[in-house]
């Protein structure tokens, strides 16, 4: 079993939709949780990070962590074509582990 599981997609949604991206994990030692966005032929860039259960909001993005269920989510409100990218979750205990990424396509 992988330490971090992430559906590869692709997830295709119309502009304006609410998008939910998720990762599940097996190691309860993970304490810090991150979401990276990666555009085609570019490196990952950090979107959000959190270290506690609950929600953290930044503009149209909300990161949610449920440590009891070992489940993290990234919600994107009012999705835009410019949000089309691959989204990777990152989880850190003594080392940083990445999910395989979910490819998101937002069409006009």
């Amino acid at each position, binding site marked *: 079993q992988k330490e*971090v599981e*992430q559906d*590869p997609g692709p997830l295709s949604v119309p502009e304006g939709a609410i998008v939910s991206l998720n990762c599940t994990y097996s190691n309860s030692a993970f304490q*810090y949780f*991150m979401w990276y966005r990666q555009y085609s*032929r*570019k*490196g*990952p*860039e*950090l979107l959000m*990070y959190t*270290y506690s259960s609950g929600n953290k909001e930044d503009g149209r993005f909300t990161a949610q962590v449920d440590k009891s269920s070992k489940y993290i989510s990234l919600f994107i409100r009012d999705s835009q074509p410019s949000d089309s990218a691959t989204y*990777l979750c990152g989880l*850190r205990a003594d*080392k*940083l582990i*990445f*999910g*395989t*990424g979910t490819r998101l396509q937002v069409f006009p």
Partner: protein
Amino acid sequence: NAGVTQTPKFRVLKTGQSMTLLCAQDMNHEYMYWYRQDPGMGLRLIHYSVGEGTTAKGEVPDGYNVSRLKKQNFLLGLESAAPSQTSVYFCASSLGTKTGQPQHFGDGTRLSIL
């Protein structure tokens, strides 16, 4: 504001050839990392460095060597390239490993081994 710069951006090698990938950062970060990204495998850590003159093995170090002679540079070497090393290689740097000290990535080197 360059951040993390990787050279070259693309390279094609023949099996058995050697090459060095260069990573440079201008953020005065202590930590530097080399990852490879393959379809369905995500980002996997090859080697990392916690400061000038130090290196350590990551998850998939075999077939690679690294050097950190200067704080701002981190070199990844392939001594005898194999087709299994065809991948996209990313360099990253960070101030440390605490919350609020995220890794900053370059735009990658696409390497094909024939």
